[in-house]
């Protein structure tokens, strides 16, 4: 078992137009360790990982594998060195099924010369899934899978080859605690086998729990490096953002007002008999396990899915949106779960993305008012602390967390009556997360009603005034958010009405 240094990187530099993503980074990884890599949005974590994967070319830098200098210029090189990756952004081929995606870019098992051995492929995929103890539909195109399943496909992909160093860039943002635990078990066993896991996340509890060493990056540089046992959450935060953060959630302001949206016996193919009243100024959390119908509820209220029976009143008038367009014009807005799939047009500029929902507001007689548009976009971007060198740049040049802020800025610009958030802080760093929570609170105190779905129950518990629990498409209970702890929360998720 090799517990010495397996990879050392020296003097790594990468310049993008307008940003120096990495400035002279030195970092090393050892066998048998879980190495945490943290830092604010845009710190350069993913850039480092993409360079190692051979996706992005470094400007300068030396790589030493087991002391021997080597280069990485393609993904083949990375595989040859035993590097394996879970990238931050899902890069799945939508019309391929899980098996095909998992083996994409790796060698398919073959027989009779060049023909793909589908039977063996299925077996190998099963083995991988079993080792992760997950159950995936193998034959369906991945575009038909849920967000969690898609994330699991991306994870399984890293195990299609036998690696030495596993780089995991925010692997768990789409997972629930159950799947996350499974992943952590796998990480533990990799470590026991003497392998290296480099784990990137904004979830500091996870980092402190599973890692042995932590490297903190800021603005393209390594600013701190130490053993996990010597660090606390606070010291980690201050190393990351350069200052202390008093608490994770901003205090409550404002009061709860009159009923804004009332839902009665809402049912469709995925939901059963959901009823609740949402007040202006209120933040309603939706609790439940993945697949319980949380996302589907939001989608139904947003006009993506149709209502079969039941009534919804918005501001006292019947509301039954036939499309997101109708929902948005009634003032109901959604921040969708997967930003790259449903939230962003990656090939267009930041300005265009932020204003996409508000085109009538930045135009006159259908003609764009460019100066006004840019000012509005900048305002919205500032309000979510978007870090971007130029708003004319494409959204895909932004770091993951900043992409999420663009989605947020887009919806905030609408000044919604009802704002629905599906995993709002996915991939957002602690500092910015606090900002986003402040904006949510602020919107609420100005009379908006907010619905939050999150797999991170701390987020739900930290924000919500009330929590509605659903299970298998039906609602099980609704509670004021007072004195609910983790354990109780889980009980409610499983449909027990009393703890």
């Amino acid at each position, binding site marked *: 078992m090799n517990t010495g240094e397996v990879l050392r990187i020296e003097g790594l530099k990468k310049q993008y137009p307008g940003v120096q993503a990495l400035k002279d980074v030195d970092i090393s990884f050892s066998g048998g360790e879980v190495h945490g890599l943290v830092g604010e949005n845009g710190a350069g974590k993913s850039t480092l990982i993409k360079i190692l994967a051979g996706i*992005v070319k470094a400007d300068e830098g030396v790589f030493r594998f087991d002391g021997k200098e080597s280069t990485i210029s393609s993904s083949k090189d990375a595989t040859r060195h035993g590097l394996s990756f879970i990238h931050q952004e899902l890069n799945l081929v939508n019309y391929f099924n899980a098996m095909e995606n998992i083996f994409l870019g790796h060698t398919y098992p073959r027989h009779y010369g060049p023909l793909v051995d589908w039977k063996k492929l299925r077996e190998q995929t099963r083995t991988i899934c079993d080792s992760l103890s997950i159950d995936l539909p193998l034959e369906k195109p991945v575009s038909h899978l849920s967000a969690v399943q898609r994330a699991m496909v991306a994870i399984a992909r890293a195990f299609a080859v036998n690696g030495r160093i596993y780089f995991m860039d925010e692997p768990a943002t789409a997972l629930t605690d159950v799947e996350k635990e499974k992943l952590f078990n796998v990480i533990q066993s990799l470590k026991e086998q003497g392998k290296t896991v480099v784990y990137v996340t904004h979830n500091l509890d996870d980092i402190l729990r599973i890692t042995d060493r932590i490297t903190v990056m800021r603005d393209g540089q390594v600013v701190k490096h130490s053993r996990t046992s010597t660090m606390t959450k606070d010291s980690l935060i201050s190393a990351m953002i350069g200052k202390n953060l008093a608490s994770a959630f901003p205090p409550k302001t404002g009061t709860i007002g009159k009923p804004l949206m009332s839902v009665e016996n809402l049912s469709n193919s995925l939901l059963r008999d959901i009823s609740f009243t949402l007040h202006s100024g209120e933040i309603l959390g939706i609790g439940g396990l993945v697949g319980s119908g949380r996302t589907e509820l939001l989608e139904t209220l947003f006009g993506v899915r149709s209502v079969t029976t039941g009534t919804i009143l918005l501001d006292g008038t019947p509301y039954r949106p036939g499309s997101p367009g109708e929902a948005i014009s009634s003032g109901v807005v959604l921040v969708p779960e997967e930003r790259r799939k*449903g939230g962003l*047009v*990656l*090939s*267009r500029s930041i300005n265009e993305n932020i*204003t*996409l929902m508000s*085109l009538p507001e930045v135009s006159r007689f259908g*003609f764009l008012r460019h100066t006004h548009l840019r000012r509005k976009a900048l305002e919205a971007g500032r309000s979510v602390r978007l870090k971007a060198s130029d708003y004319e740049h494409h959204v895909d040049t932004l770091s993951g967390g900043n992409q999420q802020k663009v989605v947020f800025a887009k919806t905030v610009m609408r000044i919604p009556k009802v704002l629905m958030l599906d995993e709002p802080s996915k991939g957002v760093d602690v500092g910015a997360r606090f900002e986003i929570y402040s904006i949510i609170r602020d919107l609420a105190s100005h009379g908006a009603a907010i619905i939050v779905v999150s797999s991170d129950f701390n987020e739900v518990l930290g924000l919500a005034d009330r929590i509605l629990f659903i299970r298998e498409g039906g609602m099980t209970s609704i509670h004021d958010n007072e004195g609910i702890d983790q354990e109780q929360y889980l009980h409610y998720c499983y449909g027990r009405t009393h703890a």
Partner: protein
Amino acid sequence: MNTHSKTRALAIIKTWGTLMGFLLLLIVFSTLRPDVFPSGRNMRNIIEQVATLAIVASGVTVVMITGDFDLSVGAIASLVGVVAALLMKSGMSTLMSILLALALGTSAGLLNGLIIAYGGLSAFVGTLATMTAYGGVALLISKGTTIFALPENFKVLGQGSLSLLPVSVLIMAFTVFVVYLLLEQTTYGRRLYAIGGNEEASFLSGIRTRQVRLIAFGVSGFFASLGGIVLTSRLFSAHPQAGSPFMLNAAAAVFLGMTSFREGEANIMGTLLGVFIIGVMGNGLNILGINTYVQSILTGAIIIFAVLLSSIAKKRQK
């Protein structure tokens, strides 16, 4: 070269490569035939020749932004020409005939949109089918023959000029300007490009994606019709297959245009450049006396070369 200037060079090739290729083409033809090619008369000739294609291709650009495709523009142009000619011969006023024919062609485009955006057929299959059908109608009503002896005042669109400027070129300039405004200055243009980039995200942002695509096909139908009218006037006769070459040439022009100015996206300036490359190639090779079959081969090769060049530059830039 160090990495920085290399990246810069690649970026330049990526955005300006096709334009540089076009200039190179002009230089090559001018050196080979300095007496004929660069003359004012020939330049005017080229512009007049490409005007109709530019009008049609501008419309196709709008459709291709969303990732759709329009194979039926050639058939619509032919059909509109035939209908306008028949109406004029039936004694209707020239203006009225033109307007009616334009309305018909625009409706044909909207029908494409209906079938594709609302019916869910792929744009390729949908317009392949309507292309065949519209072409059939043109052949049927013209009985497969060329229609001559059109009213004298109809000549002005394709052959007249306003002081020095040919009317067809003015119509081309107007078309390009209108499409430019539509794509770059209106909310509709933003919606089109958004759908082209990510249809699901556009839908979730409240864009009526089907309606936007439907209108795009209508626009394409309208400009195909306008191109058909100008062409008919220029030839001063209507033939049920006169517009056929538009189908491939317009698509080729848009594809060439996608390699310049904006990476990988159809854009109006790029399309105009594409149209001129195709026009200059045809004219120059003609002047050099190169056989038309060889011309086709060379045009195909140039398209492949341009697209390859820009995609290689794009890859290297990472």
